[in-house]
């Protein structure tokens, strides 16, 4: 059986560090495990603080990532 994946949107400097506006990630138990996978897969992210959003809300480390949700990596905002 094919392992399930999610598509993750990357913004700002994070899109440069991960090499594109989107990336594919395996499903993880929660945001904490997902972050660990990200930092291992994209070591360039270690130097940048960022939030993970799930369905347009900032997620905490304990949050689960429901199937079909929209996940994004958000570096510190700098609008205005």
């Amino acid at each position, binding site marked *: 059986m094919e392992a399930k994946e999610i598509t993750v949107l990357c913004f700002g400097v994070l899109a440069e560090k991960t090499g594109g506006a989107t990336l594919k990630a395996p499903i993880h138990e929660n945001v904490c495990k997902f972050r660990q996978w990200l930092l291992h897969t994209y070591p360039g992210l270690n130097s940048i603080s960022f939030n993970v959003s799930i369905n347009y809300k900032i997620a905490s480390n304990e949050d689960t990532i429901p199937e079909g949700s929209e996940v*994004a990596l958000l*570096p510190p905002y700098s*609008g*205005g």
Partner: protein
Amino acid sequence: MPVQDMLFIQGAISADFIMRQIEKIQSESNPGAYSLFAGQVRPDVHEKGTVMGIDYTAYEKMAEHKAEELRSLITEKHNLTSVCIYHSIGFVKAGEISLVVITASKHRKAAIEGCSELVELIKTELPVWGREVYDDNQYKWKENNP
């Protein structure tokens, strides 16, 4: 609170556009006071060179949700009759406007305080990113000051 038709404007926000929004508010609600904030791109000089402009990108869907949430919050808190937020997307040259916030209320204090609080919230809560582009085409991701 009247519905705002859009949040993002491609490129710089013109003075004509701002005037048209004020005229719209005049006809929609009958406020006694307006407060306007306009943020303009500065030609700052850094070690990398002079800022020629800022290239803005955004998580548009999330920003639209967040802008609506902030508009409701500020409208209720300060008893405003109208609240508008406009932000540029794409490249804005130094000397041009990239953010406009307009609040209207029956009285001046509410309009001024609501506008000021909303600008601070936009800076910290709207998922928008600016990349400063220098005269030699190098760039640096902008960081907002507290």
